[in-house]
């Protein structure tokens, strides 16, 4: 039997939602019929609007999809202006203030506290500037990810940006692909560093060479069925297909249609294509694609460059894109660290000014929640790096700042079990002040996800933290499971969950003891990931020695029982009313 969500989608879905959305915005939040709220909130996701958690009724998270994380000149300023004007609500974040933008692990932007009545004006401004929230959430093609500096990167095998742009233009708003069984996450990477993180996407195009008519041609190998959510992590499976750039839309559309027609619409927990690949195997996916969804002969996989991957591998060069890097055209891109991906609206506007002044005005977003200013000439570099804003958003941050990734958490999210972003900021600051990494270890990735949905991609970090609960002195407290040694690369591996249910205030002490053991027992030049790989779970658990330190965590209570964790009067009974429709 189809689910309620499928029934709602079969009635109204895709582009047509917009007219209803605008009508509700015009007539006011209360005009959404009481018995249709679940249905409309589900549908609004397709246009990038996600109703915030209980206690925050009538406020929405708005996600702006920026393909490949590319913000063309002027677009960052538009984001900053919208955040400043509209992303303000009744709650003030003690670290980030009143209006901010979140850069996500899928190279998108999220704003909070958006009111329904403001949506038409926001859409008008976004669209006048080439930005959109279309399909940023919901069951369809999500924001396409890749190496954010595609087209500029000195390490590039093939420029994937025109391919991504074409896919975005083809499949955003395409009625044939607007209603899929579940979300559809696509990665297209042209660089040899693996920074598109294809392995954790539903569909991945990765650079590969193929001999075609005695010539070595650069195109893409295809992998299908990756994803991290719900305690069921999978790396995308190789379906033994190579495709030239001009055929990517045909193959991507064929696989999207295969998913549309064969994915499970009766059980949303079993709907992602990773489960279909489990059931069929990669061979059957390839055979079905060939037989039913493309009208040309598919080529077998070409020679990939996976052995050169460095991004998020835990060893080697360029695990992220922070710092100054060469562009193909002789200028530079400068990756700036944005701790947990959150930037105040005023800083967003300042950064937009700096991008104009020192670069081309363009800015790009990475999958490590960071921001990259492109096209900075050599002779402007020193002056740019001396700008005061870069003291906070540093191109050369502490490894603990640089390595921190966090999801939204209980501040706004219905599913999260614990507070995340502010906690990760507190962790990073404490670790920076109290812990030293062994010599030669420049990066140390710690990802904090509030639940098993894994939006912070915890399974591919050196230290993975995942929201949990435990009791401390008999009282329920927020806790985290600790996983170790995950990473991508030629031989990707998920973190092993070695220590469970550590009270959140004992995590900094646990990480300090772990790094201490790593420093003491490390073989010469050994990476943390290799160190983890040569120990069994029991040994690793012994290295993680949770203890209280002078770190203080003000969010040990059940933050989900608040309307907003940082409010003075935080109880659900103190929740603000639905915002007025003016």
């Amino acid at each position: 039997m189809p689910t309620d969500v499928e029934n709602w989608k079969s009635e109204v879905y895709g582009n047509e939602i917009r007219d209803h959305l605008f009508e509700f915005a015009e007539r006011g939040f209360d005009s959404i019929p009481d018995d249709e709220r679940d249905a409309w909130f589900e549908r609004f996701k397709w246009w990038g609007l996600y109703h915030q958690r209980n206690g925050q009724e009538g406020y929405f998270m708005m996600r702006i999809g920026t393909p490949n994380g590319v913000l063309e000149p002027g677009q960052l300023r538009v984001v900053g202006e919208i955040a400043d004007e509209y992303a303000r609500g009744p709650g003030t974040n003690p670290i980030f203030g009143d209006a901010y933008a979140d850069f996500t692990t899928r190279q998108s932007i999220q704003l909070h506290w958006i009111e329904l009545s403001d949506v038409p004006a926001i859409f008008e401004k976004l669209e006048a500037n080439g930005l959109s929230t279309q399909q940023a959430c919901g069951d369809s093609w999500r924001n396409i990810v890749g190496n954010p500096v595609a087209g500029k990167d000195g390490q590039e095998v093939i420029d994937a940006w025109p391919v991504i742009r074409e896919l975005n233009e083809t499949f955003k708003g395409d009625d044939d692909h607007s209603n899929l069984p579940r979300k559809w996450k696509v990665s297209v990477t042209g660089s040899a560093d693996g920074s598109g993180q294809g392995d954790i996407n539903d569909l991945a195009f990765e650079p590969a060479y193929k001999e075609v008519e005695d010539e070595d041609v650069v195109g893409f190998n295809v992998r299908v069925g990756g994803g991290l959510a719900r305690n069921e992590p999978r790396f995308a499976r190789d379906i033994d297909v190579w495709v030239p750039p001009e055929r990517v839309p045909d193959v991507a559309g064929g696989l999207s249609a295969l998913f549309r027609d064969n994915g499970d619409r009766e059980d949303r927990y079993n709907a992602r294509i990773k489960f279909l690949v489990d059931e069929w195997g990669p061979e059957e996916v390839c055979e079905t694609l060939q037989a039913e969804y493309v009208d040309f002969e598919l080529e077998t996989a070409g020679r990939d460059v996976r052995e050169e991957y460095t991004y998020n591998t835990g060893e080697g060069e360029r695990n992220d894109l922070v710092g100054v890097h060469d562009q193909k055209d002789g200028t530079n891109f400068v990756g700036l660290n944005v701790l947990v991906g959150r930037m105040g609206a005023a800083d967003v506007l300042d950064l937009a000014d700096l991008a104009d002044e020192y670069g081309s005005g363009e800015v790009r977003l990475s999958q490590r929640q960071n921001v990259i200013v492109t096209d900075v000439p050599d002779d402007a570099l020193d002056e740019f790096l001396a700008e005061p804003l870069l003291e906070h958003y540093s191109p050369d941050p502490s490894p603990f700042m640089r390595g921190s990734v966090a999801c939204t958490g209980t501040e706004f999210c219905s599913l999260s079990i614990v507070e995340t972003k502010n906690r990760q900021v507190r962790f990073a600051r404490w670790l920076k002040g109290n812990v030293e990494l062994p010599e030669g270890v420049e990066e140390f990735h710690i990802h904090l996800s509030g639940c098993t949905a894994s939006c912070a991609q915890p399974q591919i970090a050196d230290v993975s933290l995942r929201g949990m609960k435990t009791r401390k002195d008999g009282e329920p407290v927020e806790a985290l499971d600790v996983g170790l040694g995950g990473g991508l690369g030629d031989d990707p591996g998920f973190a092993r969950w070695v220590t469970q249910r550590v009270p959140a205030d004992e995590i900094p002490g646990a990480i300090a003891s772990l790094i201490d053991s790593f420093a003491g027992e490390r073989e010469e030049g050994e990476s943390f990931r290799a160190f983890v790989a040569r120990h069994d779970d029991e040994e690793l658990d012994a290295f993680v020695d949770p203890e209280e330190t002078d770190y203080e965590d003000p969010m040990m209570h059940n933050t989900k029982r608040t309307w907003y964790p940082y409010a003075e009067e935080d109880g659900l009974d103190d929740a603000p009313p639905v915002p007025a429709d003016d």
Partner: protein
Amino acid sequence: MAVQPGSVTTRLRVLDDGAWISVDDHREVRVSELWRLDAPDFCGCDLADLVVENFQEVGVDGSRVEVRVYGQCIECGASGITGWLPVGRVRADEFVEFDRSCVRRERRE
């Protein structure tokens, strides 16, 4: 799903990836709570101390609203999906959640 506890039709749903239970389009029961369970099929503890991570299904038994939950017992570490657990009651068109501090007994088949 629409069910009829007594004579009143009530809409019960698991929404947002199992984040909460909707009763008549209102968010009534949420994840991230600790529930004490009398559920010998779930784990060996006398009373499981379950972190509610995901709702899997919602249904009714008479006027009683029940759920199946993915979670973990923080006493012993066992994780998985529970049997049917009571979460509240629909009375005169109103949902009333059971006291979260009370022990919840898994329905015996």
